[in-house]
């Protein structure tokens, strides 16, 4: 799948739209004996692996289940016992733990959008050449982040597979769809979250068309 997700950020840095096109998140379930070699740390009310990557469980994975019971934050869903207590007492072993990358919560997405909004501006400030724009493409080995900033300060961001082509055209098409189905909608106020059904459907169509096209080209 070429395109993972898209974000739209308004000129103040607030997230006004987000869509996950492909979000299969890896999950690993394993039985452990005491003591476990993973170091778990509490981060944002979740228990996250901080050290001790092994057997497909990487740093950054969240604890999702203990012995088949799903974990909410730090506590088990059914009776609210602290998962860390269960893991630290040897008489509960052997224990079956499930780890994975959880989907981002809406709050996290809003926070990451504002973070990118600032990083975009700093990228322009630290430029060794005059008149530079902000960050347009950010590359990692697992994904590529493309950003298109319009004249009015709205940023269209797409997270894609590193090999995906035609993303610039996709971002401009997204702007067109946004103008047609959100800005021209009399019930939509600028800079507010986008809640227009026609926008959602048309955007999905545009994303699927872009993916199909690049598969044809490759």
């Amino acid at each position, binding site marked *: 799948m070429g395109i*993972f*997700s898209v974000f739209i950020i308004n000129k103040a840095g607030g997230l006004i739209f987000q869509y996950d096109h*492909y*979000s299969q*998140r*890896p999950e690993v379930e394993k039985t452990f004996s005491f003591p476990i070699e993973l170091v778990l740390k509490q981060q944002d009310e979740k228990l996250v692996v901080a050290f001790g990557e092994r057997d497909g469980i*990487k740093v*950054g994975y969240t604890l999702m289940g203990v012995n088949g019971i799903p974990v909410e934050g730090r506590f088990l869903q059914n009776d609210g016992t602290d998962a860390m207590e269960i893991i630290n007492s040897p008489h509960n072993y052997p224990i079956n733990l499930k780890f994975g*990358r959880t989907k*981002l919560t809406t709050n*996290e997405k809003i926070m*990451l959008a504002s*973070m*990118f909004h*600032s*990083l975009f501006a*700093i*990228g*322009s*400030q*630290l*430029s*060794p*050449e*005059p*008149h*530079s*724009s*902000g*960050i*347009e*493409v*950010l*590359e*990692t*080995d*697992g*994904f590529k*982040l493309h950003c298109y900033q319009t004249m009015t300060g709205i940023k269209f961001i797409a*997270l894609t597979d590193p090999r995906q082509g035609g993303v610039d055209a996709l971002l401009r098409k997204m702007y067109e769809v946004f103008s047609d189905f959100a800005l021209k909608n009399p019930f939509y106020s600028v800079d507010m979250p986008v809640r227009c059904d026609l926008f959602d459907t048309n955007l999905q169509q545009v994303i699927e068309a872009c993916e199909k096209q690049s598969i044809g080209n490759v």
Partner: protein
Amino acid sequence: MTVYTLYIFDRNGTCLYYTEWNRKKQPGMSKDEEFKLMYGMIHSIKSFVHRIAPTDLRDGFSNFRTSRYKLNFYETPSGMKFIMTTDLTVGNIRDILHQIYSNIFVEYVVRNPQCELGQPITSELFQTKLDEFIRGLSIFPTRIS
């Protein structure tokens, strides 16, 4: 193909080395502030990338591009960060940054008993060797601009 600047940071955020070859715009703040901003930006980008990544990442953030320049980043397992800003035509220079680390930094700074780690690099030998290496790269312009 041009190289603009090179920054070297250690794991505590101290700027150990900075040099520029063809920089046309100063950021309008003192060098200390610029180093802090650069380190802060890189630290934030690394954290941002780690959190937003839809799949597991092996190496993490590697570079970003704006309309005028490209910032290339390489971090060693010991936390040394090599940041090189170049123009847009260069490709993947992770290997070049790795060579700067292993052939120049390790040889002339780490192995130098007079160079204190964690302090800015003052060794002239390091500066000469680094300059020689960069000027010899294919991405460095050969004509005098």
